[in-house]
């Protein structure tokens, strides 16, 4: 085993045989982490499905208070960021340093755009007082919605904030990861030979995108 280290890549950890094995380990590790993420969001999705089944009317009414344009824009923004992320990985795979840097920057930018739009959505809700809390039902009625549905709408909004809040938190972490990645990548650290960190971070980013792909119809488009 000692001969291994002579020509070993700088990034190869001592307990791996070669970079290929190391890459395999980190991708598998990330996938397994994403499994836990699925189940983490899954708890909320379960609650959502149950309550939506039993409080359908209220859910629909509350869903209509969400801004479809902003939500739709965010969907586009996030899918676009997934594209740039995929292209960043491509850049690393093919050794196109400029492309890597540019795409990472775009990904961060799009991620931030998403968060800014989300911020406006949230602040609108705060402005109307349509946020979970004891004042919700009055504000709901004040805003001219069907009072009979106030309670169920409240539940919807609660779940809406929980789901999108958790998702936004993941976005913030994602933007952080991408920034670190960009910093590390600045002088050609990632090569066609070694780019597992880019790839693995990409998996995370796409996962966050997928969560939104489900959130969008489930929250904005129900009727």
């Amino acid at each position, binding site marked *: 085993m000692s001969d291994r280290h002579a020509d070993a890549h700088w990034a190869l950890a001592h307990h791996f045989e070669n970079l290929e094995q190391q890459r395999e380990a980190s991708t598998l590790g990330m996938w397994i982490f994403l499994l836990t993420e699925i189940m983490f969001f899954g708890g909320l999705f379960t609650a959502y499905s149950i309550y939506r089944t*039993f409080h359908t*009317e209220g859910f629909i009414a509350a869903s209509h208070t969400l801004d479809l344009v902003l939500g739709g824009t965010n969907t586009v923004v996030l899918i676009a960021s997934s594209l740039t992320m995929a292209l960043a990985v491509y850049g690393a795979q093919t050794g196109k340093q400029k492309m890597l840097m540019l795409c990472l920057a775009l990904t961060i930018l799009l991620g931030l755009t998403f968060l800014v739009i989300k911020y406006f959505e949230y602040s609108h809700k705060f402005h109307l007082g349509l946020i979970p809390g004891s004042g919700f039902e009055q504000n709901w009625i004040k805003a001219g919605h*069907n009072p*009979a*549905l*106030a*309670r*169920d709408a409240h539940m919807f909004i609660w779940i809406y904030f929980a789901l999108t809040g958790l998702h936004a938190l993941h976005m913030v972490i994602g933007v952080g990861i991408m920034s670190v990645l960009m910093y590390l990548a600045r002088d050609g650290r990632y090569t066609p030979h070694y780019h597992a960190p880019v790839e693995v971070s990409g998996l995370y980013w796409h996962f966050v995108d997928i969560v939104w792909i489900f959130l969008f119809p489930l929250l904005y488009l129900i009727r």
Partner: protein
Amino acid sequence: MQVRLPFMPEQASTFAGEVDALYLFLVVLTGSIALAIAILEVIYAIKYRRRSPDEVPAPIKSSLKLELTWTITPLLIVLFIFTWGASLYFKLYRAPEEALELYLTGKQWMWRVQHPNGQREINELHIPIGRRVKLTMATEDVIHSFYVPAFRIKMDVVPGRYTTTWFEATKPGRYRLFCAEYCGTSHSGMIGWVVAMEPNEYQTWLSGGSPTESLAARGERLFQAKACNSCHRSDGTGRGPALEGLFGSTVKLQTGAMVKADEAYLRESILNPSAKMVAGFPANMPTFQGLLSEEEVLQLVAYIKSLSPRPATNIQAAGGAASAASPAVPAKSKSSGE
């Protein structure tokens, strides 16, 4: 199975013997399995003890036949246990057609009982033997669990809805009533007695005590006090549907679905009117969530129930054997208008 074995609670309901039978069957079955394994292990341990420090026994190839035997045999055994357990469960939890209906509310840390005739008690529950008793249960705060070991019956009382359970006592006596779901500081103090009495003694008990309003009559007063009658009029001219004949009928909802108007439905209609909207009516009934205690809701429910001609399933018919049991006579319910 009417024997009292050591380490068993008294058998005082129709279920007790059946539950004990399954229990004893399992004791014997699993006892012999455990014993067989233990004996085998002791024998092997003695017979095949290490005799010299370096001895290495010959390996034995595992046999598929043997593996399958000890996979399939336990499978058959557990399927049998499952069937037995499940059929018992069905009996325990399927409410009977005809029963004496009592109302129970749990509240940190006491049990409150309301009898149809208006008798109320705390931490005691008087019942006749030889009659099926159905409990409709609600809680004002956290989850509690109604547990009478001598009856082998237990059911959680869950906030936000009614749960029900039933039993039929077979022996007069005082039996312990426990709260089995942890509910806070005095969970272990939330205990009481179920007093099972001969039917005639039960009658005496019912008519004893200070004369009280019947449950339905109390509900009727509430119905007026909370101004329900401003919308629900018996002649159907109110803003809401008339409630006469509602209980036990099938209601058509706005969504087109049909639901049976049972206690749970009535409770929901009062506390969360929008959950199930009656077809043809506007959604203008206010919610009474937080304005009524569960006990009061139960009184309203009892009142609305009394507005229906009873099929065989209600208090009155149940009271047949003990006619004084239910003075809540629907006929006298005057139109709820003025």
